[in-house]
């Protein structure tokens, strides 16, 4: 039985992501956000299901489509909005923008705009966490999130082979929305059996094809517990999902006709936010919606008021001292 508390908690996280992004989409035409935004609208349940079981000192790593995991892992919302506005108070001082969100104090490794790149980096972080656990006694867990396209880059295979060889405490999560920009999976994958392939490395694999936030969360909870307490990694999770909006930018692009509307409608029916809202009483839903609205407004106000970086900041952090 699912507690109302848990449902409310997950609902709020998913709603915060969606509302935040939809607000971004709304603001976008004003050019306040001069950053290429890759929205996760429709995919929120993965980020939330994946991040909820993580401790604050566990690590999440992601690609450019990183708003959802940043928020789900507890990244600072005001600093995120300020980053999108290019402000000095942004999580990366305005230097990174939407595609490179980072918040190390909440275990959010910097995202990368180059597909695949973060997979080995996260793997290296997991190697370090494995080493560290030998002295600290606590096994921190790393989660590496990437799209279906990311699995086509050779570094994915190199990384999972290495992780399996060294039994690293890492969970790989493929957000399979069957699209890379506009190109469907069928034009990129010789065969659609990723889990089977990954399993040939001796890796435990799980496939969740309805984006059910509870299933994802439960699978992750078990995986994290397993790795936390001496279980041998890595673990692989493939989550089917659907991107509602365009690849990059604020638009609904179904009118571009490169993908089927039926699929969209199917997925809309599975929408976890609607589903969870229906599991809660109206008051709770209303309260959460209000909280979410307030948080986003506060973030926006913070971003709007913050100053831009000064020209001298161009030259800070080129080299670490």
């Amino acid at each position: 039985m699912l507690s109302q508390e848990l449902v409310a908690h997950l609902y709020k996280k998913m709603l915060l992501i969606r509302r935040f992004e939809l607000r971004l989409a709304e603001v976008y035409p004003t050019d306040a956000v001069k950053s290429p935004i890759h929205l996760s609208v429709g995919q929120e349940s993965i980020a939330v299901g994946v991040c909820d079981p993580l401790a604050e000192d566990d690590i999440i790593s992601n690609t450019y489509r990183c708003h959802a995991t940043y928020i789900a892992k507890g990244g600072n919302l005001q600093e995120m909005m300020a980053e999108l506005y290019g402000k000095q108070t942004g999580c990366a001082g305005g230097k990174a923008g939407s595609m490179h969100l980072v918040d190390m104090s909440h275990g959010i490794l910097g995202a990368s705009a180059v597909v695949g790149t973060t997979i080995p980096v996260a793997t290296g972080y997991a190697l370090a966490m494995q080493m560290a656990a030998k002295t600290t006694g606590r096994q921190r867990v790393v989660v590496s999130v990437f799209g279906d396209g990311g699995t086509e880059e050779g570094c994915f295979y190199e990384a999972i082979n290495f992780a399996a060889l060294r039994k690293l405490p890492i969970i790989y999560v493929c957000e399979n929305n069957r699209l890379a920009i506009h190109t469907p999976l069928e034009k990129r994958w010789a065969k659609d059996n990723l889990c089977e392939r990954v399993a040939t490395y001796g890796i435990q694999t799980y496939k969740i094809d309805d984006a059910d936030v509870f299933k994802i969360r439960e699978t992750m909870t078990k995986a994290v517990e397993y790795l936390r307490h001496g279980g041998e990694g890595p673990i692989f999770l493939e989550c089917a999902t659907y991107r509602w909006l365009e690849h990059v930018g604020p638009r609904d692009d179904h009118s571009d006709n490169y993908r089927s509307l039926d699929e969209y409608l199917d997925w809309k029916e599975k929408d976890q936010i609607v589903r969870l809202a229906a599991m809660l009483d109206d008051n709770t839903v209303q309260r959460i919606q209000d909280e979410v609205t307030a948080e986003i407004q506060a973030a926006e106000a913070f971003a709007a008021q913050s100053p831009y970086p000064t020209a001298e900041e161009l030259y800070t952090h080129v080299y670490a001292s």
Partner: protein
Amino acid sequence: MSMPANALQGDRVPEEQKGVRLIRYVDALREAFEQEMTRDPHVFLFGLDVDDHKGIQGSTLGLQEKFGKDRVFCTPLSEDAMTGVAIGAAMAGYRPIHVHIRMDFMLLCMNQLVNMGAKAHYMYNGQVKVPLVVRTMIGRSWGQGGQHSQALHALFMHIPGLKVVAPSNANDAKGCMIAAIRDNNPVIFVEHRLLYAVDGYVPYESYEVPFGKARVLQEGDDVTIVAVSHMVMEALRAQKHLESVGIQAEVIDPVSLWPLDMDTIMDSARKTGRLLVVDNAWLTCGASSEILTRALEICQDSEEPLPALARMGFAFTTCPTTKPLENVFYPNSRSIAAQAYEMVKGKGKLWEPPVDAKTEIDAFKGPF
């Protein structure tokens, strides 16, 4: 070795020309593909997204419909292997055009390009040729940031066996692309996102713009400005600023960075006595250091006086996303004009040029 500058930026109407019309850079590229693919069945074009409804900013639109899925196709996200595939097909006598939507992604296929593509003809003593075109775009503006804005042509200029071209206008885009497709070597074809929408006079017919010939885009007696890729636009604007204070700048576009036409550059530098190189890239070990060093070597060799020499380029930092910092990361028409002014008027003579009217930089809107 200078070439007649008969088809330039959109705002410069050629004096007497038939068979040309004003089209965008990106359409000029598309025309080059269409003409070459019609001419030679061995030409094919592939890469991520080449066959989607956006067609690489329009440059590949309609080509799959016309030439079929065997000759125009998208690939998985596998830059390294796809580059090897292109090299292998080229060795087999085909003429692949491999498209990268960002120059940054070419870092994934350096091994194939440098260890195989550049070396195969030499290492196998001429038994194979690698007639390959690698299209690659430099990004800029609207928060592209550190990993979507790099201009890495210097890395390729360093490697024997590769050719590197970076046309800055529609006419050269078409002519260089046709020349690149017909060339029997791997050609790194450097495009710039901000140039795509810029119009230029382009002949209908097919023609080659030969490599190793620079273009004098604007004549002038006071200072030579050699500008690379999108910096040509900035240099042309700088030239106008300078004109307003009585300084005549000669603006040169090398067009091809390797082979490099030092003759045209030196002829101009001899005339003006001043050579300013504005690269659309970092300076260290860059095209600008190479051009200046060559200028130096040439002058020493012929015991002629050295012109005043200077270079400008990206700040030696990763490119930041936020506009205020991006603005200071790049050289622009005003900083170029100010530098040229100081070269002409003497050290310490500062001048602040007027603000430009709306440029392609301001006009550029995201998301990408």
